[in-house]
């Protein structure tokens, strides 16, 4: 028996296709495993570094935004009391540069930051003409709470 008849009789084509396929599959599987071997060994040798990488992958850290500089003072009540006295002295309305200059002169440290914080807290309010007023009502409320806290009284329940 010869030729195509012989190939057909012995299932030659299917055997050849099977052979090529199995050789490729076996060697591809082997190649994939070997290519990952050094990674697996890296985990084995240094599991902590790997765990850190996994953690970062699962919970990616957001890039930290620079925090705005915090108030450079410990007690807003004390700052409010000091600036209240100073504003009474320079009169209202007042300009912020003048207030900051006077505050620095009398030794209030980080005057910019303190003034900025009091604006955010609505203790210093703008008059829409470029000048500012002192909000005595808010100041009284704040200082009142401060005194109650110092006495150990809950400001809400009295």
């Amino acid at each position, binding site marked *: *028996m010869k030729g*195509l008849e012989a190939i057909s009789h012995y299932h030659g*084509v299917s055997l050849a296709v099977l*052979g090529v396929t199995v*050789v490729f599959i*076996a060697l*591809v599987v*082997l190649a994939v495993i070997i290519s990952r*071997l050094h990674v697996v*060994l890296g985990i084995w040798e240094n599991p902590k570094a790997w765990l850190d990488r996994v953690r970062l992958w699962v919970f990616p850290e957001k890039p930290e935004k620079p925090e705005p500089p915090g108030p450079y003072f410990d007690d807003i009540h004390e700052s409010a009391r000091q600036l209240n006295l100073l504003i009474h002295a320079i009169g209202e309305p007042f300009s912020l540069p003048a207030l900051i200059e006077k505050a620095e002169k009398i030794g209030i440290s980080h005057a910019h930051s303190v003034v900025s914080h009091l604006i955010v807290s609505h203790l210093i309010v703008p008059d829409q003409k470029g000048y500012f007023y002192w909000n005595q009502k808010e100041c009284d409320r704040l200082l009142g709470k401060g005194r109650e806290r110092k006495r150990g009284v809950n400001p809400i329940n009295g």
Partner: protein
Amino acid sequence: MDKFIYFINQTGFANIELSGLAMMAIGLFLLYLGIAKKYEPLLLVPISFGILLVNFPLSPMMAQPENGQPGGLLHYLYLGIELGIYPPLIFMGIGALTDFSPLISNPKTLLLGAAAQAGIFATFLAMLALGFTDLEAAAISIIGGADGPTAIYLSSQMAPHLLGAISVAAYSYMALVPMIQPPIMRLLTTKKERMIEMQELRETSRRERILFPVIVILVTGLFLPTALPLLGMLMLGNLFRECGVTDRLSKAAQNELNNIIVIFLGLTVGAKCSAHYFLTVETIQILIFGLVAFGIGTATGVLMGKLMCLATGGKVNPLIGAAGVSAVPMSARVCQTVGQADNPSNFLLMFAMGPNVGGVIGSAVAAGIFLAVL
């Protein structure tokens, strides 16, 4: 006078045959190639001497035991082939001699070793078409793997009567790699491709090299248990080499044991080349189609190399695909030579060793497939 005539009748002169003389001439020619041309001398010298020894008229070297008389020396040594002992032991020696680092650091080159096995299966079809049985066709086509021990192992298991022709063809083509491969490599590649310089390989750790043989055995053993005699011993030899605690065994596998088995194997392969087995049309067909298988294997390896070159944006030199046939390290050296001819600063040897040892694994897997399905 009767005694004298009896003695004359017992000499080689009285029993000489033309076919025997032809085989002795072939044996002497192979001996010349081995010694003078240094073509695989470690194998060709014992093979050719074995051919000489068995083709003497009335040679008792391969005689079967009969009438209570023991058989010839080579008859008993041949049991090592018949029982499938020598090729796996040779593989152990090869494993102990081989550094698999280039393959471990660049495992995708295993695909080149796989592609180069296509020649085996193409030749299998051709041999079936020529009228060989499926077992004979498989044994002949494995020559395309360019792996002597694998070819001997498979033919001893599937077509022992073709063992002589197949092993002579396999080892002859392995010796002729520097002549067979370069024209095919140049034909299938452009000068620009041959000039490609590859990126340096990463260093492999000792742990990787120790785990490699274990992983190969686990994967191939599960895929194809019939490949275990060859691959199992190959990887055992390599484990001896890499584990660092069996230096004596590694040296024994590399040297003493390997050399002893090469002597036995060579002699007994030669002993199977007796005139009535060897001087046939089948042998000529085997020699021709062995060459075809080898050529196809080289070509498919290079073509896979071109594909990888394309896929990696020109980072792989396609020439190393030719090393996918498992003539270790001859075909890797050929890649180096052909590559350097076009780019003298190109050093492809280490890159070509990856597909080269991948080809050893690939051809053993191909042999395992034939053993499993036929």
